[in-house]
């Protein structure tokens, strides 16, 4: 009962954090949500999204306006009147929480104080939720995809189950170098320029390269198809999926994640383009995603080793379903339990890694506010305790919520826990 209660609380906390991340612009911003100015109606926060996409051109009145000084007929403001990273020009020093000074109107209130150069802590906390959750969710999505697929293959097929015709094996092996050449070597220019221009673009270019790779491998296989007539070449060989995956995991596990990010970032930092779009966040997501999958792959493999000999898989086989269908429709969905637990813990871990890095000031990008970078400013003034306490609290609560959530799934799905 107690456990279930904990799990529910953690779920509420996670839902709350997601809501804060989604509506951050409406909770803390330096412009009103809705305003009537000189008998015209404006929706400045929504318009802000429009400018970002380039669909809406800003009204010339507002381009350089400080919204707080405009005389509105009517305005609905967000609860916190400061944008993250915006310096309060009237108070360019650390202000204690709830210390409102003489001013009575909430426009100048810093509910949780400011950091040493006058940036609102509360606003930073609200907007920092966004990058923290994004790092956690995106990196674990990447890790989950890789881990489930590789672990599923290795667990289901083992070292003996997956057989391939010898001619196809030769064709595939021969095709790897040319496929890499056309898909990645000749496109290296496009790929590296996509890295600087954002995550979505990089993903698209990468998928395009991958498709070329696949197409060339398939072409080679088609070209080698006639060789099937020779008896030796048409024989089948086993593919050692399991051993291959184990070796790969052993290598990937050895990569120290924080140091890898430090290393890559120190090498790419000489390129100023990388800092425009905060692409260090993408780098962190990518590196965590590409290294954290080993845990998930191991769990998935273990689950499928158990599942592949169970009755329902046998039943599916006897119905004549193909291996792919059994793997994707029956085996993998039934082995997802432990993976979900690992994903929850992984999100917590990814958030910790990201906040540690921004605490250390690695890849510090000035226009993205993160909890870690806020926390790091606390060391400059030993008396301004609020700069250290509040962001740290936010990280702690978020990480603990995901950890407790993972623990709750584990107890709920473990038959031995005996509730």
């Amino acid at each position: 009962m107690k456990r279930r209660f904990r799990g529910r609380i953690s779920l509420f906390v996670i839902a709350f954090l997601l809501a804060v991340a989604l509506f951050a612009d409406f909770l803390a911003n330096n412009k009103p949500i809705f305003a009537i100015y000189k008998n015209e109606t404006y929706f400045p926060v929504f318009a802000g999204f429009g400018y970002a996409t380039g669909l809406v051109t800003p009204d010339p009145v507002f381009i350089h306006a400080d919204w707080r000084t405009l005389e509105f007929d009517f305005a609905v403001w967000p609860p916190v009147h400061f944008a993250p990273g915006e310096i309060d020009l009237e108070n360019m020093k650390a202000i204690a929480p709830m210390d409102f000074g003489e001013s009575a109107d909430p426009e100048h209130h810093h509910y949780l104080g400011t950091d040493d150069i006058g940036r609102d802590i509360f606003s930073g906390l609200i907007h920092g939720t966004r990058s923290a959750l994004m790092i956690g969710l995106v990196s674990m999505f990447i890790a989950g995809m890789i881990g489930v697929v590789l672990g599923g293959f290795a667990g289901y097929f083992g070292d003996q189950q997956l057989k391939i015709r010898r001619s196809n094996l030769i064709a595939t092996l021969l095709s790897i170098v040319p496929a890499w050449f056309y898909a990645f070597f000749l496109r290296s220019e496009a790929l590296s320029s996509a890295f600087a221009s954002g995550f979505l673009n990089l993903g698209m270019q990468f998928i395009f390269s991958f498709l070329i790779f696949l197409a060339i491998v398939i072409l080679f296989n088609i070209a080698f198809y006639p060789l099937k007539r020779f008896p030796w070449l048409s024989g089948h060989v086993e593919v050692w999926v399991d051993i291959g995956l184990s070796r790969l995991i052993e290598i990937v596990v050895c990569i120290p994640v924080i140091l890898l990010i430090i290393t890559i970032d120190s090498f790419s930092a000489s390129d100023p383009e990388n800092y425009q779009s905060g692409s260090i966040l993408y780098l962190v997501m990518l590196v965590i995603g590409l290294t954290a999958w080993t845990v998930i792959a191991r769990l998935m493999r273990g689950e499928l080793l158990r599942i592949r000999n169970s009755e329902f898989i046998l039943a599916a086989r006897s119905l004549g379903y193909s291996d792919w269908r059994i793997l994707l429709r029956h085996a993998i969905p039934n082995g997802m339990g432990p993976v979900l637990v690992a994903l929850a813990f992984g999100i917590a871990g990814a958030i910790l890694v990201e906040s540690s890095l921004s605490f250390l000031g690695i890849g510090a990008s000035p226009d993205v506010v993160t909890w870690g970078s806020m926390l790091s400013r606390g060391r400059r003034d030993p008396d301004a305790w609020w700069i250290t306490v509040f962001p740290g609290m936010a990280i702690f609560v978020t990480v603990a919520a995901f950890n407790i959530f993972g623990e709750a799934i584990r107890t709920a799905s473990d038959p031995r826990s005996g509730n």
Partner: protein
Amino acid sequence: MLRYFLRRFFVFCLTLFAITLFAFLIMVYTPGDPVASMMEFGHYGDAMAGDRAGKEEYQAMRRRLGLDLPVFYFSVTSLAEPGDLFQIARPDERAVAKALVYKTGNWKEIRIYFDQIRNFRDSVFSIPVSGEGFESAISIKQLLTELTTLEDVSGTESRIREIHKTLAAGSADIKKFEASFAAIEKNYQGIQETSTPWKIYVPAFRWYGFENQYHNWIGKLLVLDFGISYRDQSQVSTLLLTAMKWTFIVSFISIVLVYMISIPAGIFLAIKKNTFAGKSLSSVLFLLYSLPVFWAGSMLILCVCNPNQLDWFPAYGIQSRETEDWTSWQKAMDLGWHLALPVLCFTYGSLAFVSRQMQSGMAEFLHADFTRTARAKGLTENRVIFRHVFRNSLIPVITLFGGILPALVTGSVIIEEIFTIPGMGFESIAAYRTRDYPVIIAIFTILGILTQAGIFLSDILYAALDPRISFSKRP
């Protein structure tokens, strides 16, 4: 057992190879010029300005760093890309040559043109400029620099035309270059006429043999030679050896503490699982596990190292200043005083993890058949737990040692930075800030190897301690 060990060792070597390869790849793709970082600033400028002595020094430094060799044993590139591209010394010039090759695909003609234009640039740079030709000479030098070092080669044609025009309009001491530049222009036209763009789309395999950068690098790695630091030209290995000492002192104390606390805690948790004390201990451990180490460290400094509040511990460093006439006991106490907070931060995170492992190990054997037999035999509960359950559940916890070793070293980056302990983590951040690539790569490689060694050790320990592990065949 020996067979298992040998096979495991073979895999260990393979993964080591993969990790060094990975580190080397990152190193090779470094932007910037390592030779320039090693040369004195003025000398580098001389070399760039076409000064013969400076150029020779540049070549000598390049040879000393081993950068005049091919990168790897073999390469797979386009047929158009020549195998001897690495012989062009400067990285920016190499990039231009490569860009030109990937436009027209005829290296032979491009090479003639590129050598000529570089020589031309050097001869133009060597003439002193004075008087009326000043402005046009400057603009020609600018254009020539762009032609030979700007990776974007789309403007080559217009730049050549521009130089042609400026030369024609220039004064007498510039005009004398007109004839030699006309030859270059003709060669550039020749490149366009003889272009073979199909070569770009044909893959080519080249074998370079053992005289290559990776081979030399890995050979030096085996004798712990990590090259020279950019910061002060000292050996990276001596720098890291002193740093490693501090990291290992802190890690060692922490590991001992973790085991001393978490083994009893794990036993307690397993036996008193459903009591109030057991539940609260497990909750506290779980929350400690979620506590970010940099927050805990910052809070500790804020609370107990704060000159305005409680000033109990030093906020940074490993030694007080006036230690010369202290006894060794006093020195040890001073060191302990400085290391107390870092060790605390190091310890608490692994505490929850190890005691959880101990607890689940105990729980597994508490209801095992042999435990029931021991109880049935009439042994006291204490004897059952310590003689039968405890000894069996210790095996996975001992082997965890290999797993926490890398975690402690990585965690050290943050703790050493917060408490200013001059260890590996601190050095890596310092190297990051000063772009000291040899140090960063060395730390990355060492940590990768250490992690691999930790896993290797724990696998071997597991196989040696647990008789149920079969040595011959994989499960």
